[in-house]
């Protein structure tokens, strides 16, 4: 069958990007998937390691623990600042917007360095505490799980703010007015009306943040100092430091499966709240 001209132009517009991604992204990923069952030997040995090897298992547990903590902290913190961004006076809105967008546009690397500048042995906090005579020797605040959580939360708050803010903007002011007219206190209005109405935004934000945390690599590598290794960093280490490409590939495949499952959940449950959340 010959193509009619309209079909040809349609293909010229629509096809290049999907075709490019198919060639340079999807097909190479299949290569990775093949590594996971052929390296070093043919079989599912690498996937058995994911559930059986104590080292891999401990990394997996730590990853889930850190991701869950970061998700809870980021969404809670984002809720507070999004609330002021959406419902504050105009001046408050401006300040909140700046506090959200300036870190958002600055690279993950710079921000991880900022945490080092704040927390390391000769950093800002230790220098101040020592100058004030409160401590004799510097507190060790980096290269542990807490600093990884702080650094990751810092990166992810803005990502949680966007869906939350769009859920908050969608709340009908008249409902709040009705609640007040019926005699509800400020706290009651927030707790029984506003919070439930923005709950889909909370779920959406939590899923987005959790999906992002799973693949996090730069921040934990810098602030964890090789001690609090997470799944993504394990991939890097197995690629470049103590090579076990099959294991790195198996972890990658597992991450993709988990993330796709979570995205399916996101679209199933929180789609309305996310409409228009893209900046």
């Amino acid at each position, binding site marked *: 069958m010959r193509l009619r001209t309209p079909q040809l*132009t*349609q293909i010229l*517009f*629509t096809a*290049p*990007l999907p075709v*490019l*991604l198919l060639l*340079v*992204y*999807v097909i*190479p*990923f299949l*290569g*990775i998937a093949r*590594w996971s069952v052929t390296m070093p030997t043919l079989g599912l040995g690498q996937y058995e390691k994911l559930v059986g090897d104590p080292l891999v298992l401990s990394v997996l547990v730590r990853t889930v623990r850190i991701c869950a903590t970061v998700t809870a902290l980021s969404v809670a913190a*984002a809720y*507070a*600042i999004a*609330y*002021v961004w959406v419902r504050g*006076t105009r001046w*408050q809105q*401006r300040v*909140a917007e*700046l*506090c*959200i967008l*300036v*870190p958002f546009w*600055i*690279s*993950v*690397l*710079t*921000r991880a*360095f*900022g945490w080092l*500048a*704040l927390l390391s042995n*000769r*950093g800002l906090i230790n220098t101040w505490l020592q100058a004030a005579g409160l401590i004799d020797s510097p507190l060790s605040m980096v290269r542990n799980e807490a600093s990884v959580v702080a650094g990751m*939360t*810092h990166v992810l*708050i803005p990502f949680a703010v966007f869906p939350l803010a769009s859920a908050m903007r969608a709340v009908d*002011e008249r409902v709040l007015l009705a609640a*007040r007219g019926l005699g509800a206190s*400020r706290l009651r209005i927030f707790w029984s009306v506003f919070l439930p109405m923005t709950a889909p935004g909370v779920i959406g934000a939590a899923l987005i943040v959790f999906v992002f945390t799973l*693949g996090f*690599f*730069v921040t934990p*590598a810098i602030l964890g100092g090789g001690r609090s290794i997470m799944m993504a960093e394990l*991939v*890097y280490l197995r690629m470049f430091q103590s090579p076990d490409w099959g294991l*790195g*590939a198996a972890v990658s495949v597992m*991450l*993709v499966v988990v993330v796709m499952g979570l995205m399916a959940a996101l679209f199933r449950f929180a789609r309305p709240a996310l409409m228009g959340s*893209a*900046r």
Partner: protein
Amino acid sequence: MTLQRPGPAALTLATGVALFLLLPLLAVVPISFTPARFLTMPNGTWSLLHYRDLIDNPDWIAGILLSLRIGLVTSVIATGLALAFALGVWMYQPRFAAVLVGFVLLPMIVPPVVSAMTLYFLLTGLSQVSSLVGYDTWLGVTLAHVVMTVPFAVVLIFVALAQVDRRIDLAARGLGASVLQRAFRIILPNIRFGVLSAALMVFVLSWEEIGVTLFITSVNAVTLPRLMWMGVHDNIDPAIAALSVVLIVITTLVLLGRMALQRPETA
């Protein structure tokens, strides 16, 4: 009209969050003025040593120029591809539009480390075919950055297209405009700000990309973030503090400028 403004409890919490967001950025400032060669607070004497370093050290200059080049080329290619794709989907509304859009958004959803491994696999493979586009080359990095940033451009352009009145396009079509006339003379002028912000976003994302770049470069294509990574990871170089201050100041000024420009609209 907002009925209920945030009360003292909400404001206190939000202030705490704001401080948490700003403190690590502010902590970089005093450290950038230290005269020492390692990460420390200036001990009485302040110095511009590390700012000089940024200008004098050829490594930094090379890194900045390389990142600029990759960022600009990535921005043009990714925005172009995203624009053609989004226009095609918008004008023709193909039957499997949702699947297609989901497909091109994959690199944004898949964890960066998985994309990094995938692109490493691709580029080491390409290296055997051509030494021009491959592992540790600037074109290889550009290709990887296009893949990683193109979903963001697609999203931003679709957001802009969602605000275009379809009746304008229908009118043009009714008056006999060709597809190209509709695309370039009717639709494009209506979404030009969306396209520009997509190009800017892609540039910034490429400029600061490290997760993938780390996997696909070693000694030749050393972008600015790659250079910073070496300075943060191996031994902490205060020149990074100076560079960070410069980047933070530029970002803040751009955002303040944008806010000032938006003011007349919202007022």
